[in-house]
Each structure stands twice: as C-alpha cells, then as structure tokens.
C-alpha cells in the first residue's frame, strides 16, 4: 500500500504587500514530500526558503495554489483551523529557539502537549527532555541554559507530541560548529526514532548532504531538486515521492 504524501503543493504563490508595494516571494512552487523523507531546502538569503516553510506549516497562507499537509487541505483552512491542524501533527524548530522565557524547560515542552489535550503532558515532557539529555535541567529557565541546551529543549518541544512532520529552520544558525553538529546529530537521531518526515531549511551544504533529498530555491522558484542523496542519516531509503510512515505517532 502506498502512503499519501506528507506534503503536496501545486503552483504555490505568495505575494506580500499591496499595489505598488507588492512583492512576489513564492512564484509557483510544485513540491511533493513523501512520508518519512528527509528533505533539505537550500538557497541564498531572500530566495524564499523561510516563506515556503511558513506556508507549508500554515503560519502564512499562500496567495494562490493548492496545498495538502498531513492529509489536511491547508488552502481551505482559516488561521485558527490551521493552528489546530498544527497541534500534534507538525513540529517546528526555529533558529532562535524561541522558548517561552517565563517557563521552565519542562513547562516549555509540556505546553504543545497540553494545547493538543494530552492527559500526561507533564510526564511526557520530562521523558522527552531525558531523551535529549536534559533530564537534569527540567526546572531550569531558558535564561539559565546554554544556547545548545536551549536548542535541545526546542527539539524536545517540537518532537514531544510525536508529529509525523518536523520542520527545522536553520537549527544550527545561532550555535558554534561543535554544538551545532551535536544538535544536528540529535535531531536526526530523534527523527529516526519517531520516523517523522523532516524538512530542514539551511545554508549549510554539509547539513543538506545528510538528507536524502535536496531542493534548492532561487528567486522564489525551485531551481533544482536532487533526490537519491546518500541520506546517510535517513531511516528510509524508499522513493522520493512516497515512503512508509513508520513510527508516526
């Protein structure tokens, strides 16, 4: 049996501003991502990588085109429905971590579980932090954690609800090389455990090389789409357009 694609986008366009101030950011993106696939979005600054991720995660609505993510028709949903669609299905790791500064590590990780109505959010948050090696930092606040630790909490938070789809926007951008490498290892290891689809936005070709598909954007369009990458960190070696949803929550 063939699983439906995790992401299916056709002719996605995004224009910001109006009239003479309008700027066309995405200019017709066609993209299908199979479940369990690891995909790197490469491209220079201003090529539209972050905007594409925003549209794919429902943080921003496309100006036109069709988009199905994790089985939901994103083009037909309003902002609140998109927020509900994200709960438990999409995990996001951001470059600047964006932990809630007023909450401890455990509270930060428990929050998406609570938003998704999970009954054992507290215990699962602790287990998730344990899994990223921060079992001893549960009650620490973001300001009391190093950059690498903060990003590990962010990864734990993104993966805690076991989402079938994980996005990471420059996850090592704010970290030094050694810490960044550790974070990437952790991200791929946790993904392998959960079997989630992983989309990474990066400038780093070395990081991109760890994914089994590399899509390069330039000026709001897909410039190249190389599949069949060695994908040495992927759990799946199936075809680029379809793959098993093994381990999905």
């Amino acid at each position, binding site marked *: 049996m063939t699983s439906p694609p995790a992401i299916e986008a056709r002719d996605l366009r995004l224009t910001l501003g109006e009239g003479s101030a309008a700027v066309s950011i995405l200019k017709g993106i066609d993209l299908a991502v199979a479940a369990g696939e690891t995909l790197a979005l490469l491209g220079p600054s201003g090529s539209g990588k972050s905007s594409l991720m925003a549209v794919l995660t429902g*943080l921003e609505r496309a100006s036109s085109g069709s988009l199905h993510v994790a089985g939901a028709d994103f083009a037909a949903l309003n902002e609140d429905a998109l927020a*509900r669609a994200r709960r438990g299905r999409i995990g996001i790791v951001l470059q600047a971590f964006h932990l809630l500064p007023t909450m401890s590590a455990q509270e930060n990780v428990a929050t*998406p579980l*609570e938003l998704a109505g999970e009954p054992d959010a507290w215990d699962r948050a602790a287990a998730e932090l344990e899994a990223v090696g921060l079992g001893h930092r549960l009650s620490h606040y973001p300001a009391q954690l190093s950059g690498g630790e903060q990003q590990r909490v962010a990864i734990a938070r993104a993966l805690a609800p076991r989402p079938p789809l994980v996005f990471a926007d420059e996850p090592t951008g704010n970290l030094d090389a050694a810490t960044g490498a550790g974070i990437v290892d952790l991200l791929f290891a946790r993904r392998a455990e959960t079997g989630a689809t992983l989309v990474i936005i990066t400038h780093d070709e070395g990081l991109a090389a760890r994914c089994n598909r590399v899509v390069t954007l330039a000026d709001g369009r897909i410039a190249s789409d190389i599949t069949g990458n060695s994908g040495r960190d992927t759990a799946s070696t199936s075809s680029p357009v379809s793959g098993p949803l093994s381990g999905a929550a």
Partner: protein
Amino acid sequence: MNSLSWSAAWRIARRDLNRRFRGLRLLLVCLFLGVGALAAIGTLAAAIRGELSSQGQVLLGGDVEVEVWQRPLTQEETALLERYGTLSQGLRMQAMASTDDAATPVELKAVDANWPLYGTLVLQGGHRMGAPPPGHAWLAQGAAERLGVSPGDTFRIGTAILRVGGIIAEEPDRLSEGFQLGQTVIVPYDLPRQAGLIAPGSMYETKTRLRFAGSPDLEQVVEMIEQRFPDAGLDISTRERASPGAERFVGRMGEFLTLVGLAALVIAGIGIGGGVASYLEARRAGIATLKILGASSGDIVRIYALQVGAAALAGSLAGLLAGVLVTPLLAQALGELLPVQTGFVINLPALLRAALFGLLVALVFAAPPLLRARDYPAMALMRARVAPLAQGWRGALLPVGLGLAGIAAVAVLGSPQPWLNALFLAGAAALLALLAGLGALIRRLAARAPRPANPILRAALANLHRPGAATSSLVTALGFGLSAFVLLAAVETSLDANIQRSVPERAPDYFVLDIPRDRLGEFEAAVEQRAPGAGIEAVPTLRGAILAYGPAGEQIVVSQLEELPEGAWALRGERGLTYAARLPQGNSLVRGEWWPADYSGSPLVSVDEELAEAIGLEIGDILTVGLLGVERTARVASIRRIDWESMGFNYVLVFSPNTFADAPHNLAATVALPPGGTASGLLGDLARAFPSSSVIEVGPLLVQARAILEQVALAILAAAGVAVLAGIAVLLGAIAAARAQRTYDSVILRVLGASSGQLLLLQLAEFVMLAAVLAVVALGLGSVLAWLIVTQLFEFDWLPRWPRVLAVLGGGIALVLVFALGASLPVLRARPAQSLRTL
C-alpha cells in the same frame, strides 16, 4: 480538535504569569488606587448611614419628637402622646450667658428629669449623667472657655445664677439639633421661665420627645397626631429620619465622591489599557511561539485574559482591603462632624460596588489590546517584515459595550439620584472624548510642526508624535487630573472671595433677639455707648403658620394638601412673620402697592415673589395665618423681591402694622459695627440690661460655615488626589513602555557624541513640552467647569484668585515633572557598549 479548555488555558497562563505580576503592575496599581478610593468612600458613607439609622433613637432622643414654636404642647396634645409611652419635655432658645467679666451668646437647651430617653450624656472625666440638677448646668467646652469658667464656678443666664456642673464630652441628641447659633448650655427645664426668658412673644421652641412603651406602628402614630391637630403648627420627626439634614448631606456627598472616584478609576482605566497593551507587546514573541505550537487566536485570548483577569482581581482585592483599612482614619478625620461606626467596617454592598466598578473598567480598557493580541502573527518570529496589524476595534465592541453598560447600570441603579449620575457619566465620557481628541490633535500638530534646528529639541518633538507615543493617553489622563486641581482651586477661591466681599459690606455683626418692644430706645442707647456709630435695624418678630391661601371663598387649606407645591417651603410649619410701615431695605416691589405709613384699614400682606409663584398667589387673594392659636386674615397687597444675600432680616410675609398690633411680641435687631469698629463690653452690658434677650454673633457662624466648606473641599481634594495619582501611574506606565525606544535613542545619541547633560535636556524638553500642553488643557478645562459651578450652580460672582489657582496647577505639574524625570533616570544611565549588545 476543539479550543483549549479554561482549565488548560489557566495552567499555561499561570505558568507564564510572573508571581509578582511583573509587566502587569501598572494595571495592578491603577486598579488598586481606583477601587481603593471607591471602597473607602462607599465604606465610610455606609458607616455613617449605618450609624445614623441604628442610632436613630439616640440621635433624636426618642422614637418621635414633636416641635412647636413659642408654646409647650397643650394638655390635649400631651395626653395623646402619653398614650404611647414616656415623654420628655425640652425647650431650645438663644440666650446670653455672662459672668462679671465675660458674656457670650449660647444655645440654651432646657431638659426635664426624663432626659435623655435614649443614650447618655457623658461629661468630661467620664461621668455619665442625665438632666442637670436644679441650679446647675452642663456647658459645652466652647461656652466654658468664653465665659472663663470651670466646674464649680457660677455664671448668669437671664436673671438666674447657675453653677457649672460639668463640661459636656458627648451630647447624645446633638446631631438632630441641627445647625447651632451658639455653644450649648444644658439647664433644667424650668430655668428659662425662672430666669425671665419666657414671656409672651419670646422666640423659643419646645421639643417633646416620646419613648414608646410597647411597639406601636411609627407611621400610624405620626398620622394620628397630624390628623388630630392639623393646624397646630407641630413639626414631627421620627427615629427613622432622626437627622434628615445629615442623612441628605452624607447621601449627596457619598454620591458625589463616588463619582469623583469613578472619574479617577476612568483615568486609571487609561493606564490599564496602556499597561495591558505594553504587557502583550512584550509578549509578542511568546504569543507567536504559542501559535506555532498550535494555539488558536481564541486560545491566546483565553490565556492572556486569564492573566489580566488574575492581576485585575489581585489589584481590586488589594484596593478593597486598603479601602477598609483606611476608613477608620477617615472617620477620625471627620471628627465630631458626623457619627461614624468605630473600628473596621465591612459593608458588602459598598465593597461589591467598588469591585464591580474596578473589574468593569478593567474589562472596558483591557479588552481592545487583548483582542488585538489574537491577531499577532506567528510569522513575526521568522521574518521582520509582517503585514501591519489591523486595528481590530470592531472585535472589541461587544466586551467594551457590555462593560460600559455595566458601569452605567452600577452607577445609576441603586443611586438616590440616578439622573444626576447618568448626566455625570455622560459628561465624563464627553470630557474624556474631548481630551482624547485634543491629544490626537497635539500629536498631529507635533508631526506637522517645522523641525527645530536643535537636534535635542527635534528628538523631543519627535517623541510626542512618533508611532507608539503615549501623548494622547497622557494628555487625557493627566489633563483630567490636573483640571480637577484647577477646578477645585478656582471654585474654592471664588467662594471665599464672594464671602469675603459680601460679609464686611452687608452682613451685620450681631443679631439680637427678644428685645422688649417698649425698650427699643434703651437698647439703641446701650449699643451706641459701647459701639458709637453702629447701625441698628429693628423689626417686630412673630411666628406663625400659613393655614390657608387663595382667592376669597376659594381658599386652599394647607393641612388638606397631600403634597406641598414645589418651592413652597414656607407652607411647612411655622415661619417668622413681621409687620412694617415701609418697604424693608433690600426689597423691591414687583407688583401691587405698598400701604401708606399710617394705614389703618383691613389687614394687608406683602408676599415674597418666589412663594407667590410657587402657590399661585395673586394681588387681592386672601392669606390666613395661625398666630399663638389665633387665626388672622390679610389681603395680598403686593408681591416683593427679596435680596437674600443681604443677610439682614428677610421675611417671606410682611404684614401691615395694624394686623398684629394687639399680638404680644418682641423685636429683633441687627447691629452693624462701623468699619474697623469694636464693641468690647457690649455683650456684657446687654446681658445685664436685657437678661431675656439673646445675641447671635455672625463672625463665629461664618467661621463655622467656612470650616464645613473647607472640610467638603478637603474631601473632594482627596478624591481628586487619587485621580492625579492615577494620572501619574499612567505617566510612569507610558515612560516604562517607551523605555526601550528611549534607551535606544539615548545610546545612539551618546555614540554620536551627546553628553549626559544633553540627554537630560532631551528628556526634560519632551516633558516640559507635554507639561506646557497639559497646563493649557487643565487651565482651560478646569476654569470653564469651575465657572459653570460658581456662576450657575451657586449663583455667585466669578472671583477666582489666579495666583493661587496657578500655584496649585504649578505644584501639580512640578509633581508630574519630578515623577517623569525620576522614571527616566535608567534611560540616562544606560551604557552604550552594553546596550548595543542587547538592543
């Protein structure tokens, strides 16, 4: 998947909420001030009302009191009252007390052995007593001081010599006696007669108090007395309204202060709105993160509404607590003016009203920023450029509308003067709108003003209009508070100037009552000897009640009226009557003609224009008055206009001399000393030569009236002070909210070479510009409102003392500047290197 449940939202909200409410302290302080002021006002008013109603019997000195002028109750009247319980007879009149060295006018209160029927008289030293024994008197402290006597000494009243039995510490029925014209001296019931003070025509009032033996229906008893003796001129009071004057005063002051407190709360509301907006602004990233994690906009509103609600509740509760705690202090400050329950008073309706006002104002002002926060885009985390936020005020219409309706309902319902309150609220809303509009105009003007060449001034001007500048809310909040200061200063100095101006010119120095009419010449000589050149004006004084009025044959009987026509207060009970050959000074004829000086025809009367209008009296109508039990009829010959401000003897009814020629009566006189003149020894002389006469000194009465005025002004000032404090809280909040921007500006300017002095000048220039605007706003607005109050409400002349008004305003603005600069100090202390790393 559904929205987040309230309990889950509370878990997240509580986690994110700082234990010390950091970020929400402005909201907390504003609600604390506003709710605290309202709680204190409500609790104090309730404590006074509670005391007035629970102590009704003590304050009145009985369950029922029957007053009548110039006579004791008849046997028939007494017999009727005695059917219901025990009676205590009393008598009250003006008199002169003297020793060999001193004399003073006193308020003589004669009481029988049953007095007091309720409560106890307490003398200094703690002795609890009843009526004084024969030959003794209890003296008020002031009377003893003026006579220079202490317990054991003797003094004279009329022809009697009395021993000071003690000095009064607490007089149980003092409040129901009303405004006093002299210091109290309590004597045995028979003393006035023994001392020769009671003669036909003497001005005195008897008070018969009744203590019920059983528990008859109070209203039925009153109705029975009124029906049995409709024309007897009896004035009946009951324990339920023992002191209607004090009750009315407390009720009106309470309502008025509540409205001032509400105005303070509205100013606080501006702070609440600003505080919530900057709190949510600071949490923009957090809100965006929650959205990324799957929170819907409804969840965001729930989470932050719970946080704001928790802070509002905490602020309101702290305000309620402070209100309850401060009440005993306020009660003490009220002194002996009004009775207040001692200790802490917890009046649930008053506290509930204050809390409701606070929470509703919080709802009105916090709803718009809260509902705007749900539109904060999650994209803000990923890209600096996001679509500008819609204003989104439409979404807030429902909660704001509900909140406003709630405030109006709480203010109007349960108020004794709903229309006045509704009018005040509408006026306050219009004022706020006007000030908000003015603030917006100032912003616009600042934006369009030519750019000053000086970079410091340029930056200061820019601070007034740049996006996010709090100019509008500051002009509204501080403008409102400072206007209140100007208003109070202008009203107070105007009233004071009116009193000062009119008193020396027109008011006499003494009123002398009960001068025997055959000894007027002797009296004039006595005055002339001690006060040469003094002006004396003497008039006959009688007391009587209007029994009937109207065209001959169709007269309306007053006792049959179910309700008195509006403005016809002269129909109630007995009034002073007089006769005169010539039109009294300060009066002018409106219609009809004055009788010839030697008129001897059928009795005629001249009526005050206002009374004639109120009861529809025309020239030629017949008026019947009851005088010492005899009915007398006179025809209306003229209608007069009275200048009440002249403070002389002004009578609503002036009869032709032949009307009362046969009635026993005395004279009353005013004595006006020549400018700069004194009358030392006059009171002593009069006390000796005219023992049955009494003197009222005008000076102490004006001092007393001014003291009451000042206490009222103080109460209003205190409430207005809360408004200014709330305004300062708004100012501090606005400065705190703009601190990041100010720090950034300061650091950049410092990097570019600005000195500390220049940076201080920048802050100062901005606040001075704002202060100049506020001064103009406050001066204009406060003056207009004060002018309305002085000229329209009090009908006085507009005589503010501008130096004082400007000094008060200057003081207020200096306070604002000190706070503003104090709050700006952290901006000046910012270190460029450190700040640039974090900005």
